[in-house]
Every structure is written in C-alpha cells, then in structure tokens.
C-alpha cells in the first residue's frame, strides 16, 4: 500500500510541478494582454460612465447582465461536481477533476461579479447593496431582486472559496513538506496553515468537508434560481414565468460542463495526465452535458408552449414572431439542442475533438440564450411605441473578451503554482480500493 501511495504522490505531483514551458508562457502572455484590455475597458467605463456601453432604452439590461448570467452559470458545474457528486459518492470519476472545476467556479464567479458592479454606473458605491448603518438612514429594499442577487452571489463565492481551501489543505501541506526550495517551503507552509495530517485533524476534516459539501449542494440550485428571479419577477414578456428557475439552473450546469470539458482536455494533454483524468471522466461529463442539454431543450419547448397556452398576445408574438433576435435564437437552438445530440454516440463521447467542438458550441449557445432572454423581451415589450434595437459597442466586446482573458490568466496561474489535482483524495480512493 505504501508503494502505491508513494508512486501516486510522486507521479501526480511530479507532473503538476512540470514547468509549463513555452506553451504556458505564450498562453499566459495572451491572457495577460486580454486582461489589460479588460482593465482598459473598465477604466474607460469608469471615466466616461456606462454611456460608452450599448446599453440604453429600451435595452436597459444588456451585455452586462448577459455576461453576468453566463459566467455565473459556468461556475455551477464546478460546485455540482465537487459537492453534489461527492455527496452521491461518485468519487472514482469526480476526484480527478474536482479541484480543477472548483477553481473554475471561483474564477468564473470573479468574472461574473465584475458585471453587476460596473453596471451600477458608480461602482465605488457597490457597498450600498449591503445593510450598513449610514448617516442617510437609507436601507436596502429586500423586496427587490437586486439585494437577493448580492446575497446569493456573495454567499456562493464565500462558500465555494471555503470548500476549495479546505480541500486544498492536505495537498498544500504535501507541497510544503516536499518543496525543493526554502522560498516555496515558506509560501506553501503559510498557505497550509500548519496541516500535519494528524488523526484528530483528519477526523474533523472529513466532517467539515462533508458539511461544506452539503451546504454547497443546495447553493447550486439556489444561486441561479435567485438570478432567474431577477427576470421572473418582472412583467416583461418572456421573463414572467415560473419556468425560469429550473430552466436557468439546468442551463447553468449545461454550460458549466461544457467549460469543464474545454479546460480538462488541454490540461490532461499538456500535463500528460491522461491516466488520471481518464476518458471515462470526460465521457461522464459529456453524458451529464447531454442530460442537462435535454432539460434545456425541454425548457425551450415549455417556454413556447406557455406562451401559446396562456394566449397572452405579447408573449405569443414574442415567441412565434420574427424579431431582431431571431437569428440569435436559431443559432442558439443549433448550438444547444442540435449539437449535443451527437453525444448519444459512444464514439463521439470518446473523441476529444468532437467533445471540444460540441463544448465550444454549447458555450456559445448558452451565451446566445442569455442574449435572447435578456434583449428580446426588452426590445419587444407590451408597448409597440417603446420598441427599439440594441447593438453592443466596442467597449462591451472589449469587456467580454477581457473577462475571458482574465479567467484564463487566473486559471493558468493556478495551474502553475497550486496542486490542481487533489492528490490526497486520490490517495484516499487508492487506499479504499
């Protein structure tokens, strides 16, 4: 047993410690450039005000909310894998990717959080969302969806970070104890907070991890439900429906699994971890992507059925008429409903190229879905005199591209410096076998 643990330890840590080399530096540089673009775009937004965005009446919600919902949705698969699959004891295929996906969650929520804060127009007053005693005597109105969002997203972020950090402790301690240089020993030593693997700590660790997983699991459902209620409690056509919460949650997990596949395939290739992040892991992710994709397709159907069945003229014309967003709608159907159907075939699920293409299409499709939901109803609401059009500006596009770069930058830095495979969990699994 001891040899098994040692081989596992040396193999996985050795591969993780492998220097990214040129490819890593090039990727980091590109992401760094896009991060600069993000900094530039956001600075310009602060300097001029959000008039530099395309967001304007009637599309008072546009890119900022689309990107917010898209990014936060991506995070959901991370929590689904690390918490729900842990509670369901799917450790054999959950463990190899749980750390990667938790990290993805945290960094995706970081991107998501930028949007509502800058959409406020005066981001330096973002703390007004939280109840604090001030001289004006004004308090947030908790009957509005905005404080719900603030509570849901900040809870989700905090719990995800605690869960992630607790899981990291044993691996950080391993890095500390086997660090080649004194500087690394000090750095990982501080991060590991003195974890020594004593029986007492392990006992408390197991229960703490279980409790955090139990708390994170309902958050997977609650966060996107709350986000969907931003829409559902409004009267705008296409928003005002009880379908929204489950539809949003399924879509979130759907896009999240797509992102997991997009990240896991290059990671296992460049770090030569094919024997850890096995084909079976990717295949199971693909299966879950297919299932959630079918739920999303059902959501599209029910959305249209609801509009037909209620007989509401505005809802009907929105769902069945031709609009400025109709092209986006049909692209969305192709990416989210048609493309994943290829995953019914075992050969497609086993092919990395097909998986990557389908996942990228799903990510695009889910972005388009949010675009259609947010913009369509606003452009065609109940008053034809208030109809209008929407076009994003170059600053909008710069911010979207910038968040992709910033996400990549954080993720690459994590790959380089932190244990991105939970070796201690793999060891535990190996011992149990």
């Amino acid at each position, binding site marked *: *047993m*001891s*040899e098994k*643990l*040692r081989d596992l*330890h040396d193999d996985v840590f050795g591969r993780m410690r492998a220097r990214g080399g040129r490819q890593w530096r090039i990727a980091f540089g590109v992401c760094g450039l896009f991060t600069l673009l993000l900094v530039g775009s956001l600075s310009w937004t602060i300097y001029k005000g959000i008039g530099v965005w395309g967001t304007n009446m009637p599309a008072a919600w546009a890119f900022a909310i689309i990107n917010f919902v898209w990014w936060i949705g991506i995070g959901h698969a991370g929590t689904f894998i690390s918490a729900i699959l842990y509670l369901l004891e799917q450790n054999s295929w959950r463990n190899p990717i749980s750390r990667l996906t938790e990290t993805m969650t945290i960094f995706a929520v970081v991107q998501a959080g930028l949007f509502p804060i800058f959409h406020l127009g005066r981001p330096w007053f973002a703390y007004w969302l939280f*109840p604090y005693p001030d001289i004006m*005597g004004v*308090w*947030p*109105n*908790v*009957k509005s969806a905005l*404080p*719900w969002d603030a*509570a*849901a997203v*900040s*809870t989700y972020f*905090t*719990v995800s970070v*605690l*869960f992630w950090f*607790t899981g990291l402790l*044993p691996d950080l*301690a*391993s890095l*500390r*104890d*086997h660090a080649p240089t004194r500087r690394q020993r000090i750095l990982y*030593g501080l991060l590991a*907070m*003195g974890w*020594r*693997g*004593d*029986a*007492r*700590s*392990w*006992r*408390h*660790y*197991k*229960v*703490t991890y*279980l*409790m*955090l997983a*139990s*708390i*994170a699991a*309902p*958050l997977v459902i*609650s966060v996107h439900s*709350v986000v969907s209620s931003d829409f559902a409690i409004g009267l705008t056509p296409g928003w005002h429906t009880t379908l929204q919460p489950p539809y949003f949650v399924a879509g979130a997990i759907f896009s999240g699994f797509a992102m997991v596949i997009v990240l896991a395939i290059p990671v296992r290739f460049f770090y030569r971890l094919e024997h850890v992040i096995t084909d079976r892991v990717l295949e199971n992710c693909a299966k879950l992507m297919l299932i959630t994709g079918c739920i999303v397709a059902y959501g599209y159907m029910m959305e249209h059925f609801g509009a037909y069945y209620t007989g509401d003229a505005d809802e009907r014309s929105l769902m069945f008429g031709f609009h400025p967003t109709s092209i986006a709608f049909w692209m969305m159907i192709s990416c989210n409903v048609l493309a994943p159907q290829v995953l019914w075939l075992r050969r497609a699920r086993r092919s990395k190229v097909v998986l990557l293409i389908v996942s990228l299409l799903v990510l695009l499709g889910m972005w388009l879905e949010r675009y259609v939901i947010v913009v369509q109803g606003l452009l065609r609401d109940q008053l034809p005199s208030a109809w209008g059009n929407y076009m994003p500006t170059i600053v909008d596009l710069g911010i979207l591209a910038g968040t992709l770069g910033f996400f990549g930058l954080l993720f690459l830095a994590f790959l380089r410096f932190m244990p991105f495979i939970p070796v*201690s969990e793999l*060891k*535990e699994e190996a*011992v149990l076998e």
Partner: protein
Amino acid sequence: MRTGIAAEFADEATLLAAIHRVRDHGLTRLETYGPVPSEAIDLALGKERSSLSVAAGIGGLCGAAGAYALQWFLVAYLYPIDLGGRPPHMPLPYLIITIEMGFLFGAIAVFVAFLVACRLVRLWDPINDVPGFESATRDHFWLAIDGDDPALDRLGDALDDAARVAPFGGAA
C-alpha cells in the same frame, strides 16, 4: 514545549498493530499522522466521529434567524417603503436572503470550528523537527506518544515494528 517519541511505520496495518500494543501497555496520550484519513485508526485510538456538524447547524440557524430579523427591522420598521400597498412585512421575499444567510453562516461557522478543533494556523510543532517526518504527508504513517504520558516507562517493545523511532521536543 510538547515532547515525546515519534515512530514511523511503512503502512497503516503495522501502525494499527503498534497502536493496539501501545494501548495494551497502558499508554493513552497518542496521536497519529498520515497521508490519508482512516476510520480504522480513529477506532484504534478510541476516538468518536467529529461533532463539528453541530457548529454548522448552530451557525446556520443563527445566520438565518439573524437575517430574517434584520430584514424585518430594516424594511418593516426602519425604512418602510409603500410599494403598491403591499404590507411591509412579507415573509416570502424575506425568505430568499434568510436561506442564503443560513448557508453562509453555517459554512463560516463550521470552517472556524474546524480551524479551532484542529488547532490550525500553528505553523510549527516540535514533531516537525523529527528527521524524515515529511513522509507523513506522502506515504508513511507516524505514531507520536506524548512525553507526559504517565505510562511512558512501560512502553517496552511496543514500537519494535517501526521503521524509525525518534524523540522530539527535547525528550530523552
């Protein structure tokens, strides 16, 4: 400063046998170190399941109750807004933040309790100075017997299976 004797074992089974022998000799102040959690070790040491879940429950309930009370205080009492004649005290919209805060404070409470219970953020311990102790986070298991154990002189041959035995914290 904490003193004692540390013994290294190549695998869990030898460690378990050693724990049983040591306990048979009447020693009680034991701690083990290893790369994986193990119920068998907890059982051998006579330890019960951790009760930290209570902290999550208490933290969660306090967070939820506090959030509901705070919302009532703000919206129904301190700054009531008349929105289309709806009553200021409305449980349904309050519930969302109540539930979220329940989760948030439950998670924070269990994490803080975890740090306290494991006595973490103690970066160094005398046992860290035992040569080779870093194998505890890699592949080997260690047994530490506290120097203050009243039955220490009855240790005898209990640690003979160990790959290595060393005192720590200045103990002879």
